[in-house]
């Protein structure tokens, strides 16, 4: 059964005839060729597929493509454009720049989803503790980095975006 979807993806108007059962992540990857958004699981656990729907981070493996009709989708390919040019670093969103600077990625497979979650967090925060950053990444699994450099990457970006981050303290034992 086919349905028509009108949406904006990374600012571009899109109109497509699709199968009603198609998931957003496959719509992005297979129909639009936006392969930066990854599929890491089939139980909505890993977060590799995270994109923004009207500015909120969602797992695109858990959303039907038909549901984005008349809504706006942002993927990693369009992440840099979500901040004003003056805030970009070497053309990148501060979160992307942070991941590069702080070695927030190894194999890179979790990275787009991880960055979409982190960028949403920073867009909606004024101050954060390191533990709050860690907790905000609850829905994103990384098997490579051990997370520490991801936390540092997000803290790096926070600073560039005017979000203050409390420093980590070693447990007082």
């Amino acid at each position: 059964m086919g349905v028509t979807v009108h949406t904006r993806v990374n600012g571009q108007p899109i109109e497509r005839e699709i199968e009603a059962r198609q998931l957003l992540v496959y719509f992005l990857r297979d129909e639009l060729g936006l392969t930066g958004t990854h599929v890491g699981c089939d139980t909505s656990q890993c977060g590799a597929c995270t994109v923004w729907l009207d500015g909120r981070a969602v797992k695109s493996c858990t959303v039907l493509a038909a549901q984005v009709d008349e809504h706006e989708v942002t993927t990693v390919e369009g992440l840099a454009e979500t901040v004003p040019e003056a805030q970009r670093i070497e053309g990148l969103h501060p979160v992307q720049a942070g991941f590069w600077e702080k070695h927030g990625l190894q194999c890179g497979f979790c990275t787009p989803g991880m960055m979409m979650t982190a960028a949403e967090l920073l867009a909606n925060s004024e101050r954060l503790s390191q533990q709050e950053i860690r907790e905000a990444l609850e829905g994103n699994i990384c098997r490579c980095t051990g997370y520490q450099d991801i936390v540092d990457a997000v803290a790096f970006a926070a600073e560039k975006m005017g979000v203050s981050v409390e420093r980590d303290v070693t447990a007082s034992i």
Partner: protein
Amino acid sequence: MPTLFGTPVRRKEDPRLITGHGNYTDDIRLPDLLYAAILRSPYAHARIRSIDVGKARALPGVVAVFTGADIAGKVAPIPTGWIVPEADQKLPPHPALAQEKVRYVGDGVAMVVAESRAVAEDALEQIEADYEPLTPVVDAEQAIAPSAPLVHEDVPNNVVLHWQAGSDVATAQQAFASAEVAVHRRFKNQRLVPNAMEPRASVAQYNPGSGELTLWTTSQNPHIVRLLLSGVIGVPEQKLRVVAPDVGGGFGSKIPFYPEEALVSFAAMQLGRPVKWTETRSENFLATTHGRDQIQDVVLYGTKDGKIVGVEANILANMGAYLSTAAPGVPTILFGLILPGAYAIPHVRIDVKGVLTNTTPIEAYRGAGRPEATFIIERLVDEYAHEIDMDPVEVRRKNFIPADAFPYNTSTGLTYDSGNYELTLRKALDAVDYTQLRQRQEKLRKQGHLIGIGTCSYVEICGLGPSKVAGAVGFQGGLWESAIVRVHPSGKVNVYVGVSPHGQGEETTFAQIVADTVGVPIEDVSIVHGDTAAIPMGWGTYGSRTTPVGGSALALAAQKVADKAKRLAAHLLEASPDDVVMQDGLFQVKGVPQAQATFQQVALAAYTAWDLPEGEEPGLEASSFYDPPNFVYPFGTHLCVVEIDRETGNVHILRYVAVDDCGRVINPMIVEGQVHGGIVQGIGQALWEGAVYDDQGQLLSGSMMDYALPKASFFPRFEVYRTETPAPFNPLGVKGIGETGTIASTPTVVNAVLDALRPLGIEDLEMPLTPQRIWQALQQHGGDRS
């Protein structure tokens, strides 16, 4: 130019990966692409009565359905790549699709090829497979019982290999018998699911005109895939191209040559259209290899005053239903020989039975054998210390191989290259002010807190390895590496390597080496890996060998290029090569400041070849094959402080200190990243992860909902330190660092938890130390009240 060796250069691979422009196997799109899906056995052990694919075939959009019968004689069984000598190893056949019998839940039964992924999956549901269930055997101990069902009829007692090693049996037995103290334990090193974040995928494309086949696949070792694939589907090696593009983590689970790689290749040839298969995470849990899974009956023998006399290990290693590519080497060679760890232990005896069961095949998983061995010795040292009432740290110190004893020959026949074990221990203790920490622990205990301190001093064998040794231990390949450094006429450089990094950052560290050696900016160097049509032969990325072995090959090739460039520059400048120096990309003649040639000018001159020195060939490139004379042996000490919540049994990691020595460091940022990742994976085994089967062979922990992967919020900030003892046997002085964290952190954390619980009389607990398991132990020992 400042040298790049030793500096935290930002990674060259990152710009594409952070902008969504990576190229993972499932990202590959080809015209006319078909999609494959695999029907998998729901039974752990069953005879296939019949498979009716009629309905599936009739479904619109389905192009073909293949069963075991369809591929028999056309796709050869999947081979094993390691035949351990003197181990009576059997080689049970592993058909790419089950023929007659299925042997584990997830065993492939049929393959559908369709116009879309969705149709292929729909068609799976239309296949009617009729099975006659047989009694399965899941547990290794039950599998060797005389009455146990046989996984493969021609492997008696399900024992697929039996390997023994160590020092002289008679003297060892004598020493064991007369030891003052004997600490007996039974450890279960539980089965783990690697869970690389990228599921496996393969895409095959065949050109019927030329007979050439290209396979893109999620592999850590594309050349091994090419060699094995050639044998399995009968396409000669020179017409096979295997490409491992960006690979999203592997941890050992992307070493094996898998049935699906043969199946999509076969289908692409049969159908004349490209075919892609991408596994779901659920399939990944069932049909991608698992790791660990040993039952370990072990004894440490020692004196009352803390000197270890010997170690004895009787191991049942669950191998799963088939022998995966490198699997036989994991519980034997990679496990047994390193059992003495960082200590001078005169007598060691190891007995390993590899056992077939109706479970997913086991393969290397980050550390592969070495975590299982390190767990034994490091847990036993703690238990021994407790038994003789000595601080575990003191026992370690007393038994360390001293820093002046290297190279050191172990009682298991290895030659440790270099080390200063005591130094890493001291550094870890200093980081936490150990003496005071123990005092504070005492005080907090009195206040009712369950505080534990655990340490582990490990040594790892990696940088696999001399090919001669590979042959002697039954690895069916070499373990050297090769590289080509090719300067283009414009002076830009491509480097082609046989190793196949997939997250470890060698596009950067290798470029650092080449930029330093050749004298060009790092921006001008690009590393090419993973494509057998472009790169020289190599054995791949595993066993922390990429930098020690592949990096050494590359350093030697780069030096040849640098030497030739200098000769050409000298010729251009009409000087003797001895008088020419290279600085900041410029060749200069000593004492003649105006005599200069840029690197680009020299490169161009090499290619135009209008005026070359006598006897010099045109072009500017060099290749090198490097076979290391020994393995490398990184080492270190990890320390962890935990507090256990009496009410929930939850383990809070308060501090985690890692002191590692991987020889010289090319990029400290990347090294630290490897350490962090390793620590988290090892703690995953200690506290949360475990593959659980029911007695019918159903994997109960078959999704990310049931299998607890570590999350960011579970950890404090790790305190990471290094010492630097250069590797004496390779030109770079480097050792491996990819697996040390995993090797060290599991026993470190378990030791810490048991240290916290010991005052309550809790002596041992099986991993993973989940809140539930700890809470139950607390209940039994009255420890739920302070």
